[in-house]
C-alpha cells in the first residue's frame, strides 16, 4: 500500500506532463484548422440549375489595346490584342458572372478550398472575370515578369494595392459579399478585371459557350443573377426540385450596352447612422464620375 502510494506520487506528475505534451500548445505550430462547416442541407435532396447566356445583335467592334508602352506585352500577342469587352461566339456570351442572389439566406456553406486564380498574362487579366466565395483564397498571379500592380477597389471589402514587379503569386481573401469588385493595374491602364464575391459556392463565370451549371443546390426557389461588365445585370427566378435540373437562360442584347453596371453596390448601407443619409439611395449620384468599368 505504502509502495503504491510512492509510485503514484512519481507517476502523477509524469502523467500530467505526458498529457500536456500530447495535447500540445494550441498557439504553437500549425494554425488552427477552420471549424469544419458541413453542407447545411441533405445532399440527397439536391437539384441543379443549368443554363445559357445569349447575346442578340452585333457586339461592339473590338477595341485595339495599345501596348506600345510595354513592348514585352505587345510581343506576347501574335496580333494586336483587342479589348473583348463583349465576348460573343455563335450568339453565346462569355465573361458573365452567374450567381444565386436570393434563396440561400441563413445557410452557412463550407469555404471552397481550392484557390481561384486571376493571372496577368501579356498585360491582360486571364480570366477577366472570376468568382470566389467569401474567405476563399484568390491568387493574383503575375506571369509577365514585369511590373504590375493589383489595385482592387471594393466598396465593402477592404481594398488592397499590391506591387508585383516579378513573376509571383499573391493571395488575398475577401470577407464580405460584393458583386463586383473591380481590379486594375495602374501601370497598364487598359487592364481591368472583376471579382465577384458571394457567401456560397453557387456561382460561375460563363466561358465561350455561354453555358453555366450550378449544381447541388438545396431544393427551393432562387433568384439567379447574371452580371456583365458592359451590359448590366438580369435576374430570373427558378425553382429547384430534388434530382431535377431546372433550365434558365438569359439574353443580353446590343441595346443594353452602356446600361448601369453595378460595381460594389452596397449590401449593408453603412451610412444609415448619419441623419442626412437616411434615404441611403443614390449612392452613385454622389460621385460625379461613377466608376466606369471599362474604357471611358
Amino acid at each position, binding site marked *: 500500500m505504502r509502495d503504491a502510494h510512492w509510485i503514484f506520487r512519481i507517476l502523477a506528475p509524469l502523467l500530467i506532463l505526458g498529457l500536456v505534451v500530447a495535447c500540445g500548445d494550441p498557439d504553437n505550430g500549425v494554425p488552427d484548422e477552420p471549424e469544419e462547416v458541413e453542407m447545411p442541407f441533405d445532399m440527397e435532396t439536391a437539384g441543379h440549375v443549368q443554363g445559357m447566356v445569349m447575346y442578340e445583335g452585333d457586339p461592339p467592334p473590338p477595341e485595339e489595346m495599345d501596348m506600345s508602352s510595354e513592348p514585352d506585352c505587345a510581343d506576347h500577342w501574335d496580333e494586336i490584342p483587342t479589348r473583348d469587352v463583349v465576348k460573343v461566339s455563335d450568339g453565346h456570351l462569355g465573361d458573365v458572372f452567374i450567381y444565386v442572389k436570393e434563396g440561400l439566406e441563413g445557410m452557412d456553406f463550407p469555404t471552397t478550398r481550392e484557390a481561384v486564380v486571376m493571372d496577368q498574362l501579356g498585360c491582360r487579366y486571364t480570366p477577366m472575370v472570376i468568382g470566389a466565395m467569401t474567405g476563399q483564397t484568390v491568387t493574383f498571379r503575375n506571369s509577365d515578369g514585369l511590373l504590375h500592380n*493589383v489595385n482592387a477597389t471594393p466598396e465593402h471589402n477592404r481594398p488592397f*494595392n499590391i506591387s508585383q*514587379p*516579378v513573376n509571383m503569386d499573391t493571395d488575398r481573401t475577401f470577407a464580405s459579399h460584393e458583386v463586383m469588385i473591380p481590379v486594375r493595374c495602374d501601370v497598364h491602364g487598359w487592364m481591368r478585371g472583376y471579382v465577384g464575391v458571394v457567401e456560397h459556392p453557387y456561382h460561375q463565370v460563363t466561358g465561350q459557350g455561354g453555358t453555366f451549371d450550378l449544381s447541388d443546390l438545396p431544393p427551393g426557389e432562387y433568384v439567379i443573377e447574371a452580371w456583365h461588365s458592359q451590359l448590366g445585370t438580369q435576374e430570373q427566378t427558378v425553382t429547384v426540385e430534388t434530382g431535377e435540373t431546372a433550365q434558365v437562360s438569359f439574353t443580353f442584347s446590343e441595346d443594353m450596352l452602356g446600361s448601369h453596371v453595378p460595381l460594389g453596390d452596397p449590401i449593408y448601407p453603412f451610412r444609415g*447612422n448619419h441623419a442626412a443619409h437616411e434615404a441611403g439611395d443614390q449612392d452613385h449620384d454622389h*460621385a460625379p*464620375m461613377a466608376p466606369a468599368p471599362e474604357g471611358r
Partner: protein
Amino acid sequence: MARRLRWLGMGLAWLLVLPGGEVAAQDGDLERGREVYDRWCASCHGVEGDGLGPAAGYMLPRPRDFTRGLYQIRTTAGGEIPTDDDIMRMINEGMPGTTMPGWQDQLSRRDREAVKDYIKSFYPPFETMDEPEPLDFGRAPRANEERIAEGRIFYDSIECWQCHGDAGRGYGPSAPELEDDRDYPIRAVDLTKNWKFNGGGSVEEVYRRLRTGMDGTPMPAFSDLVDAGFMTDEQLWNLAHFVRSLAPEDPPRVREVIRADKVEPGEVPRTVRDEAWDEVEKFYIPLVAQIIVLPRWFDPAIDGVWVQALHDGDEIALRLTWHDRSRSPDPAWMQWQERVIEVMEPVEGDPVEPAPRPDRFAVQFPPEIPDGMERPYFLMGSSDRPVYLWRWRSDQDGAEPARARGMHEVEALSGSIEADALWEAGRWQVVLRRSLEPAADDGRLRFETGVPIPIAFFAWDGDNAEEGTRGSVSSWFFVYLREEAPVSTYVAPLVAFVLTGGLGLVVVARAQRRERTLAEGAEDDPDPDVGPDTDPDADPDPEARPPP
C-alpha cells in the same frame, strides 16, 4: 539631468492626456466632434463625410471620403484601417502637396480628438474591427553611396520609373493614365520635391509608404514583395534612401531678391546647357494657382521655378528651370487633359475644350523701375498701370515682348527676346536674354544695375489645359543686378570662415583645458557639436547628446 526632466515631463503629459482620451470616447464628445467637423471640415469633406463638400470640386486630389475607411497615410499594412494615431497625425499636420492643412495650432487637442472620433463614425466597421497593429518598421540604416546605388538598381528593376520616371519627376510612361480610387486623375509624385510628399519626406516616411502603399492611390504596397523574399527589408530601405537622395537636403528657401552677378563683357550664357550656369546661384520662386481673375484654375501643374540670373553690363540673361511632366503638346497626355477638364473645369467663363496646347512661361516687369515700393498689380497690371512681359511658348522659337493691362488685355510688342529652351526628363529649362537697354521706349523696361527691379512669373502646362488665366502665378519678387563683382565677395566669406574657425578652436581649446583642470581624472568627453567634420547626415536626435 535634462533627460530626466524630459521623462518627468512626458509622465506628467500622460497624466493629463489619459483622462482626456477617455472623455473623447464618450457621446458628448462625439457631439462636440460633429460641431467641430461641421464647422471646419464639412465644406471640403462633406457633412456626410463622403468627401463631397461644396468646395471639393475645386480640389485635386479630392478630399478624403471618410465613409470608405480608406486612408493613404498609415502605419498599418496595405488595405487595413489606420490607427487612431495615424488619423491624428493627418489632422495635426495636414497633408503637404494637397489642400489639407494641419490643425494643430487651430484647434484644441480635445477638439481634434473629438473630430477624429467623429470622422471614424462615418465608417462603422471602425467600431467592430480590432484596433490594427502598426507595422514594425525598424530603424533606418545609415545612408551611404553603396546603399543609394543599390536603391537605384531596385528603382529600375521593380519599375518605379513606370510612374515616377527615370529621373523621378513624376513623368513615367504610365503617369498620364493614373487615377485614384474614385477615378479622378492623380499625378505620380515628383520625387525630387520631398517637401510636397503627402506623408512626409524623410527617409523613414518614404520607407513606410513603400511598406504600406498609399491606399486609394495607384501607389502599391511592397510588403508582399519582402514577405515573399523577392527583396530584403534592407534593400527596401536602400530604395527609400535612393528616393530620398533625389530631393535636396532641405526644401528650397524662398528669398525676396534674385541676385544677378556681373560677368565679363560678352560672357552672358546664351544656351540652357552653357556650363556657366552651373556656378550661378538658384533662387526658388513658388508658384500658386491663379484663383483671382475669372476664369480661375484650381489645379495648376507647376508649383515653382528656379531662377538664375547673370548680366555683363550690356545684356541680362535668366535661366528658368521648372518641372513639367510633359513637353506639351504631347498626345500621350491628351487623355489626362480631357479628364482634368472634366473634373476641374470651373463653372465660369467659356467652356474649355481639350486641345493640343503648348507650355508657356512669362516673366513680368514693371515698364520702369519704381521709386518706392509701389508696383503694378501683380496679375499682369491694370488699365492705368500696365506691365512689361517676356512671353515664351514651347511651340515657337524665341520669346515675345508684350505689354499687359490685366490678364485679359495683353498686346504683343515688336521685336523678340532671345530664347533657348530644352525639355528633358520632366523638366523645362529656358534661357531668356535681352539687352539692358530697351529696343524702344514703348513701355519696355530699362534694366539698371544696383537697384532692386520688381519681377514676377507665370507658368502654364499646356497638357494640363492651362492657358490664359488658367495657370500658376507668383507674387512680385526682385532681381538685383550687381554693379561689379566686388573683391569683397570672395574675400569676406573667407575672412569670416577663418575668423569663425579660429575663434571656435580657441573656445574649444579653452573649454577643454578648463575641463581638464576642473575634473581631473573624469572621463574625457569631447563636445560632438564642435568641429567642421560634423556629419550633416547624422541623426539629429537630441537624446544622443550627452547630458551637460
